[in-house]
């Protein structure tokens, strides 16, 4: 039986962490994820968890402490946002290369500069090649569910990779929403005890972690990481199946919303997917065959599956909440179009950069994208594949 509650996204993440009851949490506060360690430290003080909470002096130290703890054989978690993740950057790679299944709650926020505390995905996109599994969450419910599935995926013997669960700063992190929680004991049973195969505090097996790794081995070790990332797809689906049996809530690598018979499709991540579903429903009432492909698993990138899912539509728009400054379009756009190209799927596809620095993405904005796609279908022409949504331009105040 689930417990119906009303929680903010940060409360949902903190609740998941309480139920997971990790051995170590090391965190440094940064808006908009500050509440997560704040709530969690209250759980520690009240004895609701028996976690060792390490109030570090920076995010670099937070990730380093998680690495130390996880290497020692403990289950470690953290939470951060924006520049906090940027500051962890070099140690993110250490975590993944040491194959330490640390779990992070990332509350997405624009990376400075100029300074902005609001939501976009530039923090996550900056870490996309760091060897972390990356799950995105449309709602508070998904932020909670993804965290509950995180350790089962990350700690799987075929994976052993760190994992971050993303949700949109403020938009979900600070919005109270209806949510269904699992009972504490159900979560405990689902996640199970952490039994690492190799760890530093095992006196029966003295090992070293993170030594010098030169020409003869690093390449092979990187390939092992890459293989683990490829393996993760299967494990993610297996864990999702088990989670569905427990909760009735279905998760895949991505969600197809009315995509079956769609003429025009949007690909996006996190909270905008919810707004897009609302617009899809409205357009469907008018007889427009609109659909959505919502990315849940961004790393590993389900290239073949996405290409197949988009193969029957007539035009696609990929929405990126980060400006990659590469003069060709967003990071998700380049991944989606590569996936389509190598799988021999040739559907007209355009990139939209949107929602930068917390710019609100309205239903009208999403509707405009679908209208643009319908125009592409009708004319067969794409004048500019690298577009912006909701951007104010000189002389044309929005």
């Amino acid at each position, binding site marked *: 039986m689930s417990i119906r509650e*009303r929680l903010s996204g940060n409360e949902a993440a903190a609740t998941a962490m309480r139920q997971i009851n990790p051995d170590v949490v090391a965190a440094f506060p940064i808006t908009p994820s500050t509440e997560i360690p704040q709530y969690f430290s209250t759980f520690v003080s009240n004895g609701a968890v028996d976690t060792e909470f390490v109030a570090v002096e920076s995010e670099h130290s937070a990730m380093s402490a998680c690495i130390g703890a996880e290497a020692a054989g403990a289950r470690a978690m953290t939470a951060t946002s924006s520049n906090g993740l940027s500051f962890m950057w070099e140690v993110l790679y250490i975590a993944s290369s040491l194959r330490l299944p640390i779990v992070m709650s990332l509350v997405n926020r624009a990376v400075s500069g100029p300074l902005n*505390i*609001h939501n976009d995905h530039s923090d996550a996109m900056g870490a996309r090649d760091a060897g972390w599994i990356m799950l995105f969450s*449309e*709602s508070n419910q998904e932020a909670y569910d993804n965290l509950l599935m995180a350790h089962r995926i990350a700690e799987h013997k075929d994976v052993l990779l760190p994992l971050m669960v993303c949700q*949109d700063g*403020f*938009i*979900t992190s*600070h*919005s*109270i*929403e*209806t949510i269904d929680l699992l009972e504490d004991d159900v979560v405990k049973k689902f996640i199970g005890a952490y039994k690492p195969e190799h760890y530093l505090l095992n006196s029966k097996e003295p090992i070293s972690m993170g030594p010098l790794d030169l020409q003869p081995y690093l390449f092979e070790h990187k390939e092992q990481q890459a293989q683990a990332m490829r393996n993760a797809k299967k494990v993610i689906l297996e864990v999702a199946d088990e989670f569905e049996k427990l909760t009735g809530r279905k998760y895949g690598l991505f969600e197809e919303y009315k995509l079956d018979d769609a003429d025009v499709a949007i690909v996006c991540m996190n*909270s*905008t997917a*919810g*707004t897009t*579903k*609302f617009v899809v429903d409205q357009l469907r009432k008018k007889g427009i065959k609109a659909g959505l492909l919502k990315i849940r698993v961004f790393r590993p990138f389900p290239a073949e599956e996405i290409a197949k899912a988009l193969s029957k539509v007539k035009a696609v728009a990929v929405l990126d909440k980060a400006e990659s400054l590469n003069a060709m379009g967003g990071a998700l756009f380049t991944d989606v179009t590569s996936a389509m190209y190598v799988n021999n799927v040739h559907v007209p596809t355009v990139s939209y950069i949107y929602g930068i620095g917390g710019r*609100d*993405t*309205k*239903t009208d904005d999403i509707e405009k994208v679908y209208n643009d796609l319908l125009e592409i279908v009708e004319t067969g022409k794409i004048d500019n594949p690298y577009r912006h949504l909701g951007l104010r331009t000189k002389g044309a105040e929005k």
Partner: protein
Amino acid sequence: MNDLIEIRWHGRGGQGAKTASLLLADAAFNTGKYIQGFPEYGAERMGAPITAYNRISTTPIRIHCNIYNPDYVVVVDDTLLNSVDVTAGLKESGAIVINTTKDGETLKKLLKGYKGHIYTIDARTVSIETIGKYFPNTPMLAAVVKVTGIIPEKDFLKDMEGSFKHKFAKKPEVIDGNMKALEVALQRVVKVQ
């Protein structure tokens, strides 16, 4: 009730508009509705105009953007009427609820011809009479419940007692005053003819 009701709050930093929106979400949640309650975070500071939002629905809510065409608008501080376009996008089938002592004619002028229903309440007087200090959000919360009818008044009062006990766990002496403020406010909402 429509499937989805959207409410926009206008207040000033420190008046509790955000808290009121969260309490309204709480109360609606307890009647089995799906809810959202969220503030628009900007550069908040005491006294600056702030906006908060509620969605209340009989079905799950998936939309995640600010509210541009609200069914109801709540104005916690009538000095905002001069500087903020509070009726922007407000549905004419809806209503605006204002904490004010201004008369109907003055309000109609300030609202630039808004054709929907206008309700007022003197939340300052209610608050001072009941709580002893000026906390407009408690009476405004009751006024919204009265005007929207989203929660039966009895259920609302019963439910809020629980919420206040939780919210004011460290200062239980203010619970009675706040409950009284809700009860009185429910009776003091006036419709502008």
